[in-house]
């Protein structure tokens, strides 16, 4: 039950109920007192009435007796002739109206005188007469008198003379007088005063109609019966069915009257009798009700006043319990409850902030606990303050093991080192060690990537250090795996490249001979005019060339697909290019009886593109056109267009040949699929041409499109941006090559004609070829078949350029190169490495300045170093060698000489060291794990800052087959021995010569 209800009920119970109870009880007692009072008063009244009646009767009796004794009464004897008695009686009866009649009787009973003349002469029958004649006053109880026609009480007083009764005075006292006496004051009162005869007959009563008729005792009134018995008192009884209160008193008189035995009854309807009480009760009830009506609302109000604030507080408390810490109570009153409200508010505020703190704390705790990375918080002194679960899990510790211990427990450092580290972190405010390690409880280590930062307090002082370390075991493993995979992939790639290189080399070598010799013979035959031979020789040559083309295509394609195709962009005059191309293609065109039409648009001018490739593309398209058109028309056109703000060169090759179906077109650019199988047989070709052409165009930022109608001809359109740029299809490592190849002038630029070219090659064919080629341009060619010979000649002649074959028996090209560079006299001569392998870069990337062999000759080494030292003073060196002994030895030797030495275990580290400190010179071992010397140099050369650092190669003299292969695979030539065209070679050489 609510407080309010209790309060209300309590007040009602404690105040109202006792009130009511008291009221009730008092009412009861008042009622009984009242009853008693009233009863007593009734009794008294009855007694009073009775007394009055008695007195009246007694008065009447006395009067009568007195009259009887009057002198003239004796004249009854003389019949009252003079009427003295009559006069008297008449007069007296007027006065004493309470007597109905007065008579004087003779002893015979004859009436001689009466108050009423009619009576005179009559004989009285009254019984009382007899008694009176005996000389005693006689009383007759109330009865009906015929004579008087009313109820009377008869008095008979003897008239005496000298002791003897001579007559009787008979007085009839009106019984109605009783009513007159008793009913005084009772009118309108509803109190009934009754005079009862001995037998209960009502002699006097409020209702005249009832008098002399009603018998109260007969009605069973207890009061009556008791009263006539002589009792006095009051009683509650029922009279005529109504509850009444009756007071009764017996008639008390002396003498003759005593015999009457009358009673007086004072009775009142209880309803009326207790009306006052009832009224009072009503009043009391009304007051009580009024009180209640006032008290209850007041109580409720009071209750509300009290409980209102309490309820407010209680509700607010509930809200707080549900988590709403905003709940506040407005104090309504200035009393204890108001104080409670204030206290509540304070408490809630406190609670809210505590909760917030707790929530924060929980929040933070849950963050820490849910972190996957380890979190260690050190205090300002480096003692572990907090560790999260990740830490304890990872390192197999319990929280208690770590908290309070110094931080180096985790890192495995010495206290001094740890202190230093802490100081560093504090100074730097943050610290990151991607390759850190934590020590587990059991002494093991876990590789982690550590980030530490300083935690400051409000004042800005260092409060602690927060270290987050990520377990990188997996990462490392993944990295390892990646590296291995990469290695494997690279290895596979290298293998593949090598394979291709080998294969192409193997394939080219005989091809060289076929083509070369067939050409030689052809020329001779032509000179000799042997026509029959020429066509055969031509066939041989063309076959050889075709085969070569195939191999080149395959290699090209594989290079393109490996993403290793590089562009040599140069400015080229389109007009000239077209001319060239036309000249070249003319024979082929004419072969099928076709006519070639050339149109060069206006303002075509120059473009920047890879000339070789472009030429290849045009050649490819034109040859296709020629092949598939018979006695038709081939048109080659060029124009410059601006498309979307970009300038493009649009080459179109249009033929009136057999055309292509839609299906053909769709398969057109797929490798090895000529239009259909029959085409290959009929028209020859490798089927790679278009694919390669397209790739070339795409690499240059353009594309080839085709339109054709089967049976009516085909148009191939080549669009290339006027400023062709390498697209992302290519690895951007052409910088080196570009540098070396230098800005190319137009092919037909003038060239200095002086110069000797030393050709070092064991392959006579090559010798011949190169010789022929070069000599035609006015160079002197000197041959050397072996490395030694080459060296000797180089030293002797000091040629302008040396072409050097890599793969030679005895001393291979590499060694020769080394020697050349080693010898001060020949070191400056540019060397063109000739090889059968494609990738140009590596070859020149290897622009090794020098080389030393192992075991290193100290003197020699120092000499080299001195040679390459720039400026005065000792320099800094980088030694890259996987052999720690070599490194150590070199370091000792070189440091003695005043050099600063940095070490690297392999090429990768070497690059790191380069990044850290640019050395003046690099001592490089070739054969190293992870990254060998070649790669290193290649990487080195990519960075502009490092390109000029001289590299001294330190390698073992004896190269195993494996090493050789590797070397061969890694060393490239600018030009392929067999695939280059004469022009290209010339160009290359010219370029080198002009550059030097």
């Amino acid at each position, binding site marked *: 039950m609510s407080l309010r209800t209790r309060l209300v009920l309590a007040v009602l119970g404690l105040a109202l109920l006792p009130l009511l109870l008291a009221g009730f009880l008092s009412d009861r007692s008042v009622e009984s007192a009242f009853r008693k009072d009233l009863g007593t008063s009734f009794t008294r009244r009855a007694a009073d009435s009775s007394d009055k009646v008695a007195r009246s009767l007694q008065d009447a009796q006395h009067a009568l007796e007195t009259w009887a*004794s009057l002198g003239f009464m004796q004249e009854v004897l003389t019949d009252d*002739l*003079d009427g*003295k008695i*009559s006069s*008297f009686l*008449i007069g007296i009866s007027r006065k004493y109206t309470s007597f109905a009649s007065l008579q004087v009787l003779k002893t015979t009973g004859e009436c001689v005188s009466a108050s009423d003349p009619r009576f005179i002469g009559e004989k009285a029958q009254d019984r009382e007469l007899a008694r009176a004649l005996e000389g005693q006053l006689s009383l007759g109880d109330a009865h009906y008198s015929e004579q008087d026609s009313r109820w009377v009480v008869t008095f008979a007083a003897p008239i005496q003379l000298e002791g003897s009764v001579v007559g009787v005075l008979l007085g009839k006292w009106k019984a109605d007088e009783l009513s007159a006496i008793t009913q005084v004051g009772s009118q309108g009162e509803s109190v009934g005063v009754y005079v009862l005869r001995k037998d209960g007959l009502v002699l006097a009563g409020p209702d005249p109609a009832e008098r002399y008729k009603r018998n109260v005792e007969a009605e069973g009134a207890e009061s009556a019966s008791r009263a006539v018995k002589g009792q006095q008192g009051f009683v509650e009884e029922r009279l005529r069915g109504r509850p009444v209160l009756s007071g009764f008193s017996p008639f008390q008189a002396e003498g003759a009257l005593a015999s009457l035995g009358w009673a007086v009854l004072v009775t009142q309807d209880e309803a009326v009798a207790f009306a006052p009480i009832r009224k009072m009760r009503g009043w009391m009830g009304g007051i009580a009700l009024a009180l209640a009506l006032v008290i209850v609302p007041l109580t409720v109000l009071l209750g509300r006043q009290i409980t209102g604030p309490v309820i407010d507080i209680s509700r607010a408390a509930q809200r707080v319990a549900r988590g709403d810490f905003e709940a506040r109570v407005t104090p309504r009153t200035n009393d204890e409850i108001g104080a409670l409200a204030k206290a509540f508010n304070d408490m809630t505020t406190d609670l809210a902030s505590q909760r917030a703190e707790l929530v924060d704390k929980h929040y933070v705790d849950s963050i820490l606990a849910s972190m996957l990375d380890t979190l260690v918080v050190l205090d300002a002194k480096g003692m572990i303050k907090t560790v999260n679960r990740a830490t304890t899990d990872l390192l197999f510790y319990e929280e208690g093991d770590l908290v309070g211990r110094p931080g180096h427990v985790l890192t495995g450092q010495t206290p001094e080192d740890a202190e230093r580290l802490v100081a560093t972190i504090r100074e730097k405010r943050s610290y990151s060690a991607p390759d850190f390690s934590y020590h587990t409880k059991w002494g093991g280590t876990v590789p982690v990537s550590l980030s530490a930062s300083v935690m400051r307090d409000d004042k800005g002082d260092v409060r602690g250090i927060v270290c987050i370390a990520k377990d990188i075991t997996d990462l490392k493993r993944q990295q390892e795996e990646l590296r291995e995979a990469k290695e494997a992939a690279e290895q596979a790639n290298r293998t593949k490249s090598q394979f291709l290189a080998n294969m192409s080399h193997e394939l080219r070598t005989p091809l060289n001979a076929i083509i070369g010799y067939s050409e030689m013979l052809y020329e001779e035959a032509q000179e000799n005019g042997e026509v029959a031979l020429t066509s055969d020789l031509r066939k041989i040559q063309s076959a050889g060339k075709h085969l070569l083309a195939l191999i080149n295509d395959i290699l090209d394609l594989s290079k393109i697909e490996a993403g290793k195709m590089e562009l040599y962009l140069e400015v080229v005059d389109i007009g000239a290019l077209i001319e060239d191309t036309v000249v070249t293609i003319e024979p082929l065109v004419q072969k099928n009886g076709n006519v070639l039409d050339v149109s060069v648009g206006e303002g075509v001018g120059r473009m920047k593109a890879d000339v070789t490739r472009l030429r290849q593309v045009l050649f490819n398209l034109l040859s296709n056109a020629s092949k598939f058109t018979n006695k038709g028309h081939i048109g080659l056109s060029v124009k410059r267009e601006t498309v979307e703000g970009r300038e493009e060169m649009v080459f179109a090759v249009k033929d009136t040949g057999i055309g292509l179906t839609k299906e053909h077109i769709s398969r057109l650019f797929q490798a090895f699929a000529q239009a259909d199988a029959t085409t290959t047989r009929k028209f020859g070709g490798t089927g790679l041409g278009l694919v390669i052409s397209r790739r070339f165009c795409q690499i240059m930022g353009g594309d080839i499109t085709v339109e054709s109608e089967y049976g009516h001809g085909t148009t191939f359109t080549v669009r290339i941006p006027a400023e062709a740029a390498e697209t992302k299809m290519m690895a951007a490592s052409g910088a080196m090559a570009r540098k070396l190849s230098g800005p190319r002038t137009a092919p037909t630029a003038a060239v200095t004609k002086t110069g000797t070219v030393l050709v070092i090659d064991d392959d006579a064919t090559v010798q011949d070829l190169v010789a022929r080629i070069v000599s035609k341009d006015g160079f002197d060619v000197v041959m050397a078949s072996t490395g030694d010979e080459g060296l000797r000649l180089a030293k002797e002649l000091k040629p302008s350029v040396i072409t050097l074959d890599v793969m030679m028996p005895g001393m291979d090209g590499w060694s020769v190169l080394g020697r050349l560079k080693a010898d001060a006299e020949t070191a400056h001569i540019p060397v063109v490495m000739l090889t059968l392998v494609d990738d140009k870069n590596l070859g020149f990337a290897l622009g090794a300045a020098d080389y030393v062999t192992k075991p290193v000759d100290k003197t020699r080494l120092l000499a080299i170093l001195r040679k390459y030292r720039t400026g005065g003073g000792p320099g800094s060196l980088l030694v890259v060698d996987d052999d720690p002994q070599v490194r150590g030895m070199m370091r000792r030797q070189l440091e003695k000489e005043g050099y600063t030495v940095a070490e690297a275990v392999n090429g990768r580290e070497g690059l790191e060291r380069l990044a850290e400190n640019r050395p003046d010179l690099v001592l490089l071992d070739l054969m190293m794990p992870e990254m060998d010397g070649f790669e290193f140099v290649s990487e080195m050369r990519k960075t502009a800052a490092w390109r000029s650092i001289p590299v001294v190669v330190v390698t073992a003299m004896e190269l195993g087959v494996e090493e050789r292969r590797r070397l061969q695979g890694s060393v490239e030539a600018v030009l392929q021995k067999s695939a280059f065209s004469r022009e290209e070679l010339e160009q290359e050489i010219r370029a080198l010569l002009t550059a030097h």
Partner: protein
Amino acid sequence: MKIPNRSAVLFALLVPLASASNAAIGLDVAIIVNTANPTTSISSRELEKILKQDKQNWEDGKKILLVLQETGTAEKEVVLNKVYKMQEAELKKFWLSKMFRGEIASFPKTLSSSGSVSQFVGKVPNAIGFVDASLVSGVKVVKVDGKLPGEAGYPLASK
């Protein structure tokens, strides 16, 4: 008072005797009034009226106060015979009926002797009574029918 009046009884016994003797002697009853009373003579008729209390007021309007003598006196006898012409009992009845009719309030006043009547009338101005003519003193005698007692033709002579 219960003491019997001996004298009254005696007198009562004696009166009849006396009256008898008086009749034999010859008594004149004088009608007397108070000396102040202007009346000097009345007719016998008037006298009857007065005595019968039919006439109840003097000329001047004052009430006639009639005084009779008690039954048994000679004087009463004469009056009874001569005026009332009734016996005592009849006269009682007469008075009763008169009272019954409301003509008179009560029996007229009676006195026991001429002497007391004389004394009474002499003192009471409006009174009228009858006495033995020989015993008149201090009162006025009224002529009846013009005659005074003792005169011949006087109506109230006992003879």
